[in-house]
């Protein structure tokens, strides 16, 4: 449990520090902590953190994908503003989210943190998604030109993979997936913040 808190706080503080940097200064912490977020899936599975394994797994995988398979792999997009956009969105979200989990584990959750967690996403989610989509879109021409991560026929294993088409499919998948995640958060918000009258007695 202490490990969770320690990792959580460390991530939040570094993320706070990297908020103002260019890609190169945030590159290593970003990679380290987003990849470290894979631990989060385990935390959910172990029940330490009260979130769904599927939803968290999905979110972590998409972040790891953006960090490694897109931004790291395609040097040309690293100076794009869209990268700054989603990194900023992720950073603010993570600071709030980790504070939320940390305080929850300590059984001393200030209403402000709870409110922030279930309110800020309304703007941060679309902001992050826009940044992510613009970054993938910016990467497309370079991927097509260099044939990055792609395999063509003929080859002795009779297999092919077109990373360019794959990225387009990923972008399209945002259309059904993003509204579902967004409205899930909105429903959670109604459930959690709906009891404002009861809560004032607890704190």
């Amino acid at each position, binding site marked *: 449990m202490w490990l969770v808190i320690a990792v959580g706080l460390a991530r939040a503080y570094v993320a706070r520090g990297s908020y103002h940097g260019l890609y190169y200064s945030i590159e290593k912490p970003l990679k380290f902590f987003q990849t470290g977020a894979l631990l989060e899936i385990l935390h959910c599975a172990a029940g330490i953190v009260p979130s769904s394994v599927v939803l968290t797994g999905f979110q972590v995988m998409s972040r790891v994908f953006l960090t490694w398979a897109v931004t790291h792999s395609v040097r040309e997009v690293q100076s794009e503003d869209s990268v700054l956009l989603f990194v900023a969105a992720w950073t603010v979200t993570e600071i709030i989210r980790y504070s939320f989990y940390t305080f929850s584990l300590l059984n001393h959750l200030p209403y402000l943190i709870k409110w922030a967690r279930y309110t800020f996403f309304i703007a941060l989610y679309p902001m992050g998604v826009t940044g992510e989509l613009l970054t993938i879109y910016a990467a497309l021409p370079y991927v097509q030109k260099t044939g990055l991560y792609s395999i063509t026929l003929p080859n*002795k*294993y009779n297999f092919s993979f077109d990373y360019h088409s794959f990225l387009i499919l990923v972008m399209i998948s945002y259309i059904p997936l993003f509204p579902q995640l967004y409205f899930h958060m909105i429903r959670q918000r109604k459930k959690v913040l709906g009891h404002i009258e009861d809560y004032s007695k607890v704190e």
Partner: protein
Amino acid sequence: MKHYEVEILDAKTKDKLCFLDKVEPNATIGEIKSMFHKSHPQWYPARQSIRLDPKGKSLKDEDVLQHLPVGTTATFYFRDLGAQISWVTVFLTEYTGPLVIYLMFYFRVPFIYAPKYDFTTSKHWVVHLACMCHSFHYVKRLLETLFVHRFSHGTMPLRNIFKNCTYYWGFAAWMAYYINHPLYTPPSKLYGEQQIRLALILFLFCQIGNFSIHIALRNLRPPGSKTRKIPYPTKNPFTWIFLLVSCPNYTYELGSWLGFTLMTQCLPVAFFTLVGFIQMTVWAKGKHRSYLKEFRDYPPLRSPILPFIL
């Protein structure tokens, strides 16, 4: 003869849905389901789950009213299992797809490959062999569904047909695309012929094996019944594997697809084999556990799917 009264409540809302009086003590759950269906025609018996406890296990159709732990006024809880579809229908649909789809790729129907290849045939003999094997496999499955298998359950939830068909049809298309592609590369010249020959032998051996197991399992169960017995090796040597494995039908199925993978040397086929293996292992472990729970004298040497390993 003392009659029972039966009331059926909704498991979630506890609303009284149905009241049956003058029910025979030897009435079965199946008969009660039919009576319930009369008052609620949208809930045909296959989609009714009747239990003694709202969160408990479903009672079986064969269970008799007077043998259940209920008083003369019996209270049952009902849960709707959702729209149901018969196992036979699902199997026929999910197996016909791959048969037809693969052939479409084999004959290079337009809009799949470049127009200059429309309706051409591959120059590699292994491609023709693969088509025969794949088609034979699915024809065998269809015939087994119609004439061999004796299903425990009549139906499954309707949404399964979409899930299952996506799996079978999707993978069939993915594999067929590469095997029948104009740029397909058959196993290399050096050991290619031997590899294909070995693969074919493995495939045929396992097809016969799989069929033998299906016949053996069918013979365990008299027609129309749902009895469960421990399967044992018979005079057919292909069933001797029962000494070491609980679900040899899955073992042979894995062998068939390994043969097909080796024959075609195609990565998507390897993926299909792997995914199928994982799913069959899950099923085999479940079946093995049920056998152990139900039969005290279950042979201890047996493993679920791979002798001594899994």
